[in-house]
C-alpha cells in the first residue's frame, strides 16, 4: 500500500482519515489515458462539424463496464447450467426410468456448471473476499441481486440433484432436480436483464430482444454440450438434435432482432458491425448457422457420431462468440459518447421510458424537440 505517497501526505505528521484515504493505489499510478479516451481531441466546435454532433473532446460520456472475460464466460456457463437443469427436470417428468442416463448427465452438467459459474463471478469481483455481501440484501431493481439469489438457491439444488442419487438418496435427488429446473429459466435469462440494467446504449436499445437471444443461446449451448458426450443412444441423440435445431433457429432469429433493435439508431448498432465485437458477432452467426446446417444433413448411421460432434462444436463456438460479441459490443458503445447522445435525442432516453424528455434549453425546450 502506497497510500500516503500518492497523497503527498506524511503519515507521521497528518492523519489519513479522509473519505478517500482508504482507497488503495498502485505504484506510480497514472490514470491517463482515460479508459476509452478518444484519440481525436478535436475542439468541441470542430468535433461538432464532424459526424454525429458535439462532444466534449470526443471523450466518453459513460464509464466502460469494468467486467472482465469471466463475465461473458459466465453468461455461457450459466446458460449451460440453466439449460441442463431444465432438460434434467423435464426428462425426469416425462420418463424417469427410460431417460435415466440423460437425466444424470444433465444434472452433472447443471451442478458442475453452477459451481464453475460461482467461481467465474467471484473472480470478477474487485474484492473477492467479500462475495457474500451479495446476499446481504435483496434488491428487486438490481438484476444482479436477483441473479445472485437465484444462483445461490439453484447451485445447491443442482449439485444435490447430481450427487444425491449417487449416494442412494434418489427421491431427494429428484426433488432437488425439479427445484433446480424451476429456477433455471431465471438463471438463463437474467444476465440479459442485467446488461440492460445499465446506461450502456447498445444494451439499453436491445432490452427486450437480448433476453430472447440469451435464452436461445443458452439452449444451443446446452444441446451442444449434451451432444459432446461420447456415447448416446438413438433417443438421446434425437432429443439433443431436435432441441439444438429449434434453439439454433431461435438463436439466429433473435440475433437478427437484437441487431435490428440496435440499428434503430445507427450509431448505437455500430459495434455489432465494426471492430473485434463486429467480427465476433459475425462469427457467432456463421457458426450457429453452420451448426444448424450440419445437423440437418442426412447421413448414414456410421456418420451420425461425426455429424453430432461437428454440430456440437460449431454450436458451442456460436454460443460463446455470441456472448462475447454482445459483451464487447456493449463496452465499445460506451466509448462512443455520440451513441448515447443520438439515442437520447431520438427519443430513446427517458422520453421512451418515462414518456417525457429532459429539458435541454431555455423556455422548457426538451431533448426530443427538433
Amino acid at each position: 500500500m502506497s497510500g500516503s505517497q500518492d497523497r503527498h501526505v506524511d503519515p507521521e505528521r497528518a492523519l489519513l482519515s479522509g473519505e478517500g484515504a482508504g482507497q488503495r493505489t498502485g505504484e506510480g499510478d497514472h490514470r491517463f489515458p482515460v479508459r476509452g479516451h478518444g484519440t481525436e481531441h478535436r475542439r468541441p466546435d470542430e468535433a461538432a462539424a464532424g459526424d454525429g454532433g458535439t462532444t466534449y473532446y470526443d471523450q466518453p460520456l459513460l464509464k466502460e463496464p469494468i467486467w472482465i472475460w469471466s463475465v461473458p464466460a459466465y453468461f455461457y456457463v450459466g446458460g449451460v447450467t440453466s439449460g441442463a437443469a431444465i432438460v434434467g427436470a423435464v426428462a425426469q417428468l416425462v420418463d424417469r426410468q427410460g431417460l435415466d442416463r440423460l437425466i444424470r448427465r444433465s444434472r452433472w452438467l447443471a451442478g458442475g456448471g453452477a459451481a464453475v459459474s460461482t467461481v467465474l463471478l467471484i473472480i470478477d469481483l474487485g474484492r473477492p473476499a467479500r462475495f457474500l455481501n451479495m446476499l446481504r440484501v435483496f434488491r428487486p431493481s438490481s438484476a444482479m441481486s436477483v441473479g445472485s439469489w437465484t444462483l445461490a438457491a439453484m447451485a445447491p439444488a443442482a449439485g444435490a440433484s447430481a450427487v444425491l442419487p449417487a449416494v442412494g438418496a434418489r427421491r431427494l435427488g429428484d426433488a432437488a432436480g425439479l427445484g433446480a429446473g424451476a429456477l433455471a429459466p431465471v438463471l438463463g435469462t437474467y444476465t440479459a436483464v442485467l446488461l440492460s440494467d445499465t446506461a450502456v446504449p447498445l444494451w439499453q436499445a436491445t432490452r427486450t430482444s437480448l433476453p430472447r437471444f440469451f435464452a436461445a443461446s443458452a439452449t444451443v449451448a446446452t444441446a451442444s454440450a449434451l451432444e459432446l458426450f461420447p456415447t448416446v443412444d438413438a433417443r438421446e441423440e434425437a432429443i439433443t438434435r431436435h432441441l439444438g435445431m429449434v434453439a439454433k433457429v431461435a438463436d439466429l432469429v433473435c440475433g437478427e432482432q437484437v441487431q435490428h433493435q440496435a440499428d434503430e439508431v445507427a450509431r448505437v448498432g455500430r459495434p455489432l458491425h465494426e471492430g473485434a465485437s463486429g467480427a465476433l458477432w459475425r462469427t457467432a452467426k456463421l457458426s450457429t448457422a453452420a451448426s444448424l446446417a450440419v445437423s440437418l444433413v442426412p447421413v448414414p448411421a456410421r456418420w451420425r457420431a461425426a455429424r453430432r460432434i461437428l454440430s456440437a462444436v460449431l454450436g458451442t463456438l456460436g454460443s460463446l462468440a455470441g456472448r462475447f460479441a454482445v459483451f464487447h459490443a456493449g463496452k465499445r458503445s460506451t466509448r462512443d459518447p455520440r451513441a448515447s447522445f443520438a439515442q437520447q435525442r431520438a427519443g430513446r432516453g427517458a422520453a421512451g421510458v418515462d414518456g417525457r424528455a429532459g429539458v435541454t434549453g431555455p423556455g422548457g425546450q426538451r431533448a426530443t424537440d427538433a
Partner: protein
Amino acid sequence: MSVSPGIMPTSDESAELRAGSELARDHRGEFDRGHGHALPAGAKGFFTDTTVCIGCKACEVACKQWNQLPDDGFVFTGTSYDNTGDLGSSTWRHVAFIERPGAHPTTGFADMSWFEGDDAPSAPVAFGPDPQGGGDFSWLMLSDVCKHCVHAGCLDVCPTGAIIRTEYESVYIQPDVCNGCGMCVPACPFGVVDRREEDGRAWKCTLCYDRQRDGLEPACAKACPTDSIVFGDIDDLRAIAEERVATLHERGVDSAYLYGADAASQPGTQGLNAFFLLTDAPEVYNLPPDPVDPTHAVGAAWRSALVAGAAMVVAVAGAVLSAAGARR
C-alpha cells in the same frame, strides 16, 4: 472598462453576483458553523452556475485534499486547460473547459488577439469586449460532480446495499460494504462512479457527508471563490437558480437554463440534487441530453426474460416428447 450593453453586470450588480444572491449568502452563514453539530436532515445539494465559473479548479483541489484522494499523475491532455479529463474513482470534482468560437454568453468577452500576432499588446488588455474585434474564441467552464440523482442508477442496481441514500438525500457508497462487483459503474447515466483497479471498490463524491455531519458545507463549495458552486437546501437552491436564470434572461442571456433542477425537467432521474445552470446544449458539457435511471426500464426486460425462459422449457419439452418414438 467598456462592456457589451445589457450583458455585463453593473458594478453594483457584480458585487451581488460575487456573493451569489442573498439566499446564497445566508447559506454561507448557516452552513459554516463548524461547531461539530450535524446539519439538520433534509435534501441538500449543489447548484452549479456555470456562467460565473472562472476555471480556477479550487474545487478540484479542495475536494482532493479534504478527501485525501490519491493523485492521478501529472499529465498533459492537450484538451484546453482540462488536464483532469473526467470524473473517476480519485477525481470527484472535474472542471471542464469548453473552447468555442464566439463570445462568452455572459461576459461578452471574445478577444484572444493578445495571445498571438505581431500587434499583440505587451500586456493583456482588458479582454476586448467586442465580439467582432479580432478574436473569435471563448471558454465555457463547468465544474462537474456526482449529481446525487433522486432516482440514482448506481444505487438502484447495487446488489450489496453498499450504496445508500443519506439523511441529506445524497448518494453515498459505503467502502466497507462494496465488494467491487462493478454493477454501478455502467449504470450511472452520467459516467460518474468508477472502480479503482488496485483498490477493487467503487468510489465517487460523497457530497462531503463527513463535513455535513460536522456542520460544514462541502469542501468544493467552501473553496469556490465565485460561488459558482452553491451548497444548500434543495428548495432554496431552486429558488436561487430560478432567480439567477431570470436575471440572466433580463440581461439578454437568452440561452441560460437549468439542467436537472427537478423531476419535471428531468423525468429520467426525477431531478438531480446537484443541478446546473447551462448556456448551451448538455452535450457540449459532456452531459447526457435525456438521461434515465436504467432501472426505470428494467420491467420490460424482465417481462421479455420470463417469456423467453418459459420458451426454453417449452422447447425442451417438445424435444423430449418428439423423441419418444426414436428407436433405442
